């Protein structure tokens, strides 16, 4: 059997050095085993039958024709789920296989295993399901008055405000100071964000192998091994240790692998057939096989004095969570918590509501709630600047949030937050001079399409600030485990379940171990639930911070242990925890302890665009950004996160949207869900602002999300400058630029 090989190198440097990745070598050779590359002798191929309806009752399922087909080894439904019939990342509201009702297009109804993928596909087609279609709930505003999709209200009773309206996943209100506080100037705006998809390139896939003793090994691309195990085991009616999750190569994640995909299905089929079962989604299935970024509608009012002090912000945020809860409760909290941005504002009323609908389920995606409100909030700041006739950068400096100030939740900032420095450095980056005509159309809006030789092209410059928390929040008992084995020969092996999803945490852990142990001879063992405790999730810009803390502590403990023993091999495991947070008060949205968020990060971005205003086509010419990173553990990797995160924000600004009709995704392919190509991405000038975070190991903040949060807003700011249009919806369509209202 071929699984992910141990990742090893003796040639990594220490914390703060600019380092190459060891896993890049097998990756450039095509020798790195991704979850879709695995195989095992006697392996069967699994496939999933999915609902064609957004909302329907299942009247009957007839498997007989499918079972009779050649090469078919199993056809399973909810009746074959031996344990709990539902699962969920935070709330167990999602059926492993639909029982009597389907709530979204693409919901799994049955799974098959066959000896060839084509035979599995034909078996799916032979399953007969009789549905009684029901009216789907597809509008996030109307959802609050329509029939409840989850009458048992699975997210209530968890310490959130009890909202009796139908289909509320979470309603959160943050009341800060006097929300009626007036201003000399008031600007209002309504904003909308479409559904963005993580669109990682490696499709959902994995291999489940029965162990012959009733348990199962699941090799899968995931972001959090232990939480997968804890969701899978109860559904299989197994003890946690009977389900071993192994990290297979991950082809990108960006939040989309937090929720389960094939894990339970593959294990069910493997246990049922006593054969290894591989499942690989195709691109179309991938688009329905994971959660998306929440689409949002936002109503904003910003008030300020004549001099430009923001006195009050009121914002109502509606998020469509789709059919199941996933992480909607936390996304809603983030949306409200960071709605104001990194500004000191003494009075606010921030309401966020996440709802259930029959639209595709939404959950975690890079930026997690902060992306949506940053887009709206920064547009408001620009409007305020225009209204006040104050330079938008000056207005941001004037209101910049700094240590010692309070967040709208009442939390006083005790960590590092160099907001003013980030603004100054980004705004000081020189912008490129306008290039003369004629040019190759590749360097004009419309690109290869040859649509303009300069006609209709206007240039715009924009600026925005992004703001987000680092690590999990609101009392989540977050921890990260690492195990260090010091061998007699002086070499060391680090065990961690931290998921390497492309971000480079394997390098971070080696750097930390080398720094602490003073040796180059450190290797990383493969990640598995069976060899080490939980690392938590590769999410929330937390993995570098948490894994660095855990590996540091385990290394130091190992050295102490060896000194105590006077030599010999030592093997220690340590659990690292960040400073504790506490929940928000459900009535006021205020902190109930010292803090609800562990730490915060800020990024500023300056953008130059060119827009063909007659055709509504765009080109991002240049991006300059300054980001608060605490301390860059590996500057090369940090730059990579900033460039890649910027590209995803560019995608949301200009092209990325899953379009739905009656709950069905109309563009579940890379032909119609467009992500930026090499011809869409500008050069990126980066300033790393290193002001160490006092609570973080080595002072390092997470860096993955702030660029995605800020770039959409910054690009929109530049587009507004070029077009004079308000552009209140992303992604911006050519229609909006050509026909949109005037500002």
């Amino acid at each position, binding site marked *: 059997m071929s699984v992910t090989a141990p990742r090893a190198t003796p040639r990594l440097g220490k914390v703060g050095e600019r380092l190459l990745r060891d896993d890049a070598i097998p990756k450039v050779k095509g020798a790195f085993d991704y979850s879709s590359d695995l195989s095992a002798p006697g392996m069967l191929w699994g496939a999933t039958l999915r609902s064609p309806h957004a909302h329907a009752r299942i009247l009957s399922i007839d498997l007989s024709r499918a079972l009779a087909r050649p090469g078919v080894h199993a056809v399973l439904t909810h009746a074959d789920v031996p344990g709990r019939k539902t699962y969920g990342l935070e709330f167990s509201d999602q059926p492993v296989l639909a029982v009597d009702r389907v709530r979204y297009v693409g919901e799994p109804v049955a799974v098959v295993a066959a000896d060839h993928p084509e035979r599995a*596909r034909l078996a799916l087609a032979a399953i007969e399901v009789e549905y009684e279609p029901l009216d789907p709930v597809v509008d996030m505003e109307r959802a609050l008055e329509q029939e409840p999709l989850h009458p048992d209200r699975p997210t209530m009773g968890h310490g959130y405000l009890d909202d009796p309206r139908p289909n509320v996943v979470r309603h959160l209100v943050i009341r800060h100071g006097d929300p009626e506080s007036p201003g000399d100037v008031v600007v209002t705006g309504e904003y909308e964000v479409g559904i963005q998809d993580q669109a990682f390139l490696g499709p959902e896939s994995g291999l489940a192998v029965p162990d012959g003793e009733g348990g199962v090994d699941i090799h899968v691309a995931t972001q959090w091994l232990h939480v997968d195990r804890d969701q899978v085991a109860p559904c299989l009616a197994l003890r946690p240790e009977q389900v071993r999750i192994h990290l297979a190569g991950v082809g990108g994640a960006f939040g989309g692998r937090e929720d389960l995909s094939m894990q339970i299905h593959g294990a069910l089929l493997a246990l049922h057939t006593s054969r290894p079962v591989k499942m690989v989604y195709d691109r179309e299935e991938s688009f329905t096989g994971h959660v998306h970024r929440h689409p949002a509608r936002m109503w904003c009012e910003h008030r300020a004095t004549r001099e430009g002090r923001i006195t009050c912000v009121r914002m109502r945020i509606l998020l469509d969570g789709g059919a199941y809860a996933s992480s909607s409760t936390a996304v809603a909290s983030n949306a409200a918590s960071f709605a104001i941005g990194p500004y000191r504002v003494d009075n606010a009323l921030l309401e966020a509501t996440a709802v259930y609908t029959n639209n595709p389920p939404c959950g975690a995606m890079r930026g997690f709630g902060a992306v949506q409100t940053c887009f709206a909030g920064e547009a408001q700041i620009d409007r305020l600047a225009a209204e006040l006739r104050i330079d938008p950068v000056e207005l941001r400096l004037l209101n910049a949030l700094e240590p010692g100030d309070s967040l709208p939740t009442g939390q006083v900032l005790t960590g590092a937050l160099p907001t003013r420095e980030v603004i100054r450095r980004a705004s000081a980056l020189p912008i490129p001079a306008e290039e003369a005509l004629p040019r190759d159309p590749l360097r004009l809006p419309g690109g290869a399409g*040859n649509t303009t*030789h300069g006609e209709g092209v206007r240039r715009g410059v924009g600026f925005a600030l992004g703001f987000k928390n680092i690590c999990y929040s609101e009392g989540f008992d977050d921890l990260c485990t690492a195990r260090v084995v010091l061998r007699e020969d002086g070499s060391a092996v680090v065990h961690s379940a931290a998921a390497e999803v492309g971000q480079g945490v394997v390098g971070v852990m080696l750097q930390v171990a080398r720094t602490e142990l003073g040796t180059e001879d450190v290797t990383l063992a493969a990640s598995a639930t069976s060899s080490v405790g939980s690392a938590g999730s590769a999410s929330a810009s937390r993995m570098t911070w948490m894994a660095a803390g855990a590996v540091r502590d385990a290394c130091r403990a190992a050295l102490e242990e060896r000194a105590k023993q006077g030599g010999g091999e030592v093997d220690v495991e340590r659990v690292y925890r960040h400073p504790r947070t506490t929940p928000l008060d459900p009535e006021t949205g205020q902190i109930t302890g010292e803090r609800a968020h562990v730490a915060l990060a800020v990024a500023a971005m300056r953008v130059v665009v060119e827009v063909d205003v007659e055709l509504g086509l765009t080109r991002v010419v240049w991006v300059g950004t300054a980001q608060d990173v605490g301390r860059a553990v590996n500057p090369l990797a940090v730059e990579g996160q900033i460039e890649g995160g910027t590209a995803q924000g560019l995608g949301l600004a200009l092209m990325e949207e899953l379009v739905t009709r009656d709950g069905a995704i109309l563009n579940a392919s890379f032909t119609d869900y467009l992500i930026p190509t090499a011809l869409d991405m500008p050069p990126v000038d980066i300033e790393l602002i290193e002001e160490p975070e006092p609570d973080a190991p080595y002072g390092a903040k997470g860096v993955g999300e702030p660029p995605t949060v800020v770039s959409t807003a910054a690009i929109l700011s530049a587009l507004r400058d070029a077009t004079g249009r308000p552009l209140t919806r992303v992604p911006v369509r050519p229609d909006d630029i050509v026909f949109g209202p005037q500002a």
Partner: protein
Amino acid sequence: MDVHTPRTLEEALRLKAELPEARFVQGGTDLLVELNFGRSRPEALVNLAELDELRGWSREDGELRLGAGLTYTEAMRPELAELFPALAEASRTVGSPQIRNRGTIGGNLGTASPAGDALPPLLVERARVELASVRGVRTLPLDEFLLGVKRNALEPDELVTSVRLAPSGGAQTFMKVGPRNAMVIAICSLAVVVDPEAGEVRASFGSAATTAQRITVPLAEAGSLPERVADAASPIDDVRATAVYRRHALRVLTGRAVERCLRS
């Protein structure tokens, strides 16, 4: 599913006559998508990739003959690009380099999508399509060959073997609107040629009607072409753009194209 790989055109035509349900495959850039996603399972495939008769291009009696197997990459090479610049510009907008290396003019005609990038340039140059079968060879003007959305005049036993046209030698251009700056299916596309010999300006557009169409105006009325094109379009709303936008964009593009051509 059987795959037949004929070595001569004659053999290919005989196979198709015997297996009318079989599908031809050349570059595979359309058909393989259907196969990979289980959207079609033809009983047999006839692989055209080994047929020398379909390859390349030539000049015959002042005419240009483009083999059905001519790839977009080949159409972009200088020698042919000089004779038929609009086709070269259109080819540059097709998919990616990988797709341009495989996709062919013949495939574009066989698929007959209203978004086919090669169709507007071929239409403005008044191309004719050569169709062959065991019954013989016939030639149809391209506008008669295209019947509707993914429908063409091919009989079940016929194959597109080449496209013929007399290059006008006139200034010409191709433009394509897409929602990103590379690798897009056209929201709308346009080819324009100013043909001084015929004393006319011709335009053809894609993705804005059930088939690509040609509009001709006398040179003296070139200024009316943008409105004529916009009027001729019958676009729809879809996931890529609105009908209103498509019509507007065609008007803008045509104005720019005419100016470009007249200036050059």
